[in-house]
């Protein structure tokens, strides 16, 4: 099963340390392979790798592209879209 989504990153500081950790932790709660990109042409980054997500250095007002593959792919994309829309509040403890 595959799923895709996009969400506008509005967090003022962009995808810096704390949001990157929260995004990674959320991705890790799903079995699906989850990837994120600032450009649909790539590079596509493993959303479960905190080092790589932080390394994207994504600024605010970037349209984030998400894609997932696995039995809970849709739930993973939905959760990540919600997380970014909620300004990274409400991630896993």
């Amino acid at each position, binding site marked *: 099963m595959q799923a895709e989504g996009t969400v506008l990153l509005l967090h003022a500081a962009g995808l810096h340390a704390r949001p990157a*950790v929260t995004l990674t*932790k959320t991705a*890790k*709660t799903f079995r699906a392979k989850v990837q994120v990109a600032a450009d649909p042409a790539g*590079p596509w980054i493993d959303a*479960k790798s*905190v*080092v*790589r997500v932080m390394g994207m250095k994504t600024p605010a007002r970037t349209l984030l592209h998400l894609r997932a593959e696995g039995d809970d792919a849709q739930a993973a994309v939905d959760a990540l879209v919600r997380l970014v829309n909620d300004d990274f509040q409400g991630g896993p403890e």
Partner: protein
Amino acid sequence: MSNGNTNVGIVIVSHSPDVARGAADMVRQMVGGGIPLAWTGGNPDGGLGTSVEGILQAIDAAWSEAGVAILVDLGGAETNSEMAIEMLPEPRRGRVVICDAPVVEGAVMAATEAWGGSDLQTVRRTAEELGERPE
């Protein structure tokens, strides 16, 4: 001793207790409480330094059956950590590693990886990946 957590534990070792405590605070605030975490730093007189005994206590406090990853700052922190590992009883000795990574950044990265349930080698690799530049 067991804290009931099956995730890899993280130990922060710095010459400065303020640095060690501050790095641990960052881990707690950024990654949360889902991982065993302990820090040690300073010598018994309150000055800068590290001690084998303090490191052993921190390993014990952060112990997990999945193992413990140690982040260190400078020279003595690493050699004392190696000595502490050598002094551990055999079943534990093979399950403690020192990460070749910056202490603060490495602790946050390692803790995030450990939070998701990754094994000890993956946790270490994630911390050490920091120094590399993925394209």
